[in-house]
């Protein structure tokens, strides 16, 4: 088995049969994120990215750099649910939503600036973002959570 250093720029992409507005809602509102994002209740305002557990414990709290509904969202990332990862430097997450004429969207998620956060990089790579994004697709297309 090949061991590898987790990538400092990670790119994830998926087609979702949903409108750009629906996807925007699903990534910025807690009643949606709780159903596909490891139970995280995420609230995004033009200023702040706030993520909490079901009982209100802070999992993420970062500045929003770009808030352009329903096309582009850029925010900081700090994995506050784990003390070691929380101590690492902040990284950055970009969400891009491109809708085509048939009402299908291409969602691109880029997690970069991970140079100062190797534990976070390893944790979100592989099953991490891939699981979240495939669960988001399933939820929006079937109305049911994946798990």
């Amino acid at each position, binding site marked *: 088995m090949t061991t*590898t250093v987790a990538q400092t720029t990670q790119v994830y*992409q*998926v087609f979702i049969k949903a409108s750009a507005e629906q996807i925007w809602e699903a990534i910025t509102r807690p009643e949606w994120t709780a159903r596909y994002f490891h139970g995280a209740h995420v609230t995004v305002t033009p200023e702040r990215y706030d993520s909490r557990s079901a009982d209100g414990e802070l999992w993420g709290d970062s500045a929003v750099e770009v808030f352009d509904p329903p096309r582009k969202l850029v925010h900081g990332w700090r994995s506050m649910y784990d003390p070691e990862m929380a101590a690492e430097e902040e990284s950055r997450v970009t969400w891009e939503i491109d809708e085509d004429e048939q009402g299908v969207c291409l969602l691109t998620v880029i997690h970069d600036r991970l140079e100062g956060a190797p534990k976070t990089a390893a944790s979100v790579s592989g099953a991490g973002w*891939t699981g979240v994004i495939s669960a988001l697709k399933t939820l929006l297309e079937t109305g049911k959570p994946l798990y």
Partner: protein
Amino acid sequence: MTDDDLVFKALADPTRRHLLDRLFERDGRTLTELDADLEMTRFGVMKHLRVLEDAGLVVTRRQGREKLHFLNPVPIRLIHDRWIDKYAERQVSALSELKTRLEERR
């Protein structure tokens, strides 16, 4: 062809699997870096990368004057959710449970 067809077709070639493995080792590579160890023309490598892109397994992003290739694992995950979960996981978990039980008896 459906999305699944494109992914299975893309994975059904050793050169393309090799390209994915190279991106898994280190992501965000240029075409020049990717064709370095392949005994194949640049045009041949480009054709393989195009098939991987069409299947969504490789995503390209421009960075300055360079075009970087990134491995996108989401289509493989969707295949996993669609096929592996359904046919394999139950048997696999039953087998691993049996293994645990037998080993406990020793």
